[in-house]
C-alpha cells in the first residue's frame, strides 16, 4: 500500500520560493504542473513579442507585454524575477527612449530564459512525481 504521507511530500527545488509555492498549490502537484506548463508557454510567446517591440522601438507595447509576463513568474515561484520585471516595467515610461532600455531588456531577457530553463526542469520533476502517484 502506498504511504500517503510520503506521496504528498513533494519538495520544490532550490531556486524557487518554496514556501510561497507550497502556499499557492497546497500540495496539488497536478495543478502545479499544469500551471508551470501554461506559464512556460505564455512566457515564450511573450518574450518573442517583447523582442519585436524592442526592435520596433515601441515602448508602450513593450511595457504592456512586460506587465503581462510579471505575475507568471510568481506562479512559478520565482518572486525575485517578478520583482526585476516590475522594476523594468516601471522604467518603460512613454518618454523613455528604447536605446536606454535595450541593455536592461537583454539583461532581463537572459534572466527570464534561465528562469524558464529552471522551470522546465521542475516541470519534468513534477511530471515524474505525478506519474508515480497516479
Amino acid at each position: 500500500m502506498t504511504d500517503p504521507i510520503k506521496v504528498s511530500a513533494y519538495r520544490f527545488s532550490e531556486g524557487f520560493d518554496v514556501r510561497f509555492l507550497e502556499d499557492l498549490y497546497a500540495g496539488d502537484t497536478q495543478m502545479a504542473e499544469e500551471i508551470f506548463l501554461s506559464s512556460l508557454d505564455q512566457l515564450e510567446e511573450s518574450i518573442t513579442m517583447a523582442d519585436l517591440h524592442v526592435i520596433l522601438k515601441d515602448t508602450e507595447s513593450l511595457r504592456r507585454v512586460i506587465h503581462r509576463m510579471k505575475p507568471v513568474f510568481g506562479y512559478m515561484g520565482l518572486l525575485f524575477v517578478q520583482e526585476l520585471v516590475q522594476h523594468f516595467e516601471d522604467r518603460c515610461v512613454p518618454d523613455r527612449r528604447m536605446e536606454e532600455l535595450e541593455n536592461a531588456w537583454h539583461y532581463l531577457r537572459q534572466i527570464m530564459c534561465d528562469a524558464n530553463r529552471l522551470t522546465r526542469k521542475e516541470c519534468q520533476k513534477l511530471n515524474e512525481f505525478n506519474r508515480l502517484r497516479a
Partner: protein
Amino acid sequence: MMHKGIIVEDLKPAADILMRFCQRSGAVGISAHFLNAEDALAYLDEHRVDVMFLDIEMPGISGFELMDRLEYPPQVILTTSKTEYAYDAFQYNVTDYLRKPFTYDRFLESVQKLRIARSDVPEPAEDHIFIKVDGKLIRLEGRDILYIESMGDYVRFVTQQRKYITHNTIKNIESRVEGMGFLKVHRSYIVNMSQVDDLQDTNLIVKGVSIPVSKSHKLRIRQELNII
C-alpha cells in the same frame, strides 16, 4: 451558498489558477471565462452573475472601462499585478483587490468578503414614498403605483386612480424605489413589476398601458417576471 461568477482575464495561467481556486472552495461556480472585456460585456448583457473576477489591463477596453459601461455591475473582485490601481479600485467600490499572484488563503478572504457584501444588501423595508406635488406632501403606497415616467426635469407617477407630477429626475427616483419591486425598464420608465400583465416584443403591458423596454434591460425583466 454558491456564487455564480465569471472570470475576465487575458493571462491563461492566472485564469487557470483562479478557476481551480473557485472549484476547490466550492463557493464560486464559474460560468464563463473571457480573454477581453468586450466579450464579457456582451455576456453580461444577457446573463446575470453574482461576482466578476476582473483583470484591469487587458487588450481593448480595460477592467475599469468595463465597470463604467455596466448598468448593473455584479460584485467585482479585481485581480491585478499592479498596486497603483488600488486607489481607483477603492473609488469603484469593488469587493476586493487581489494582487497577482495570490495564494488560496488570500482568495478565500475575498470570497468571505463577497458573502458579507451579499448579506449586507438591505432588505426592502419601505413600502411607500412621499412626493411633493404643488407644495404638498403626498404619500404613495408602492403597491398603488403602476409606473413612473420621466418628463425631463419632472417625473410622473401613475397610479390606478390618478397621475402625479413632481419635480425630480428618474435617476434619483430609481434609487429611492429600489427594493420596492420596481425596475427601470427603459431610460424613461420605472415599472412596478407586480403590476405587469404582459411582456411583448419591445413593450411591457401594465394595466393596459404599453411601456417601451430597452434591449439592455430585457433579460433582467424576464428574470424579474420569473419567465421560465
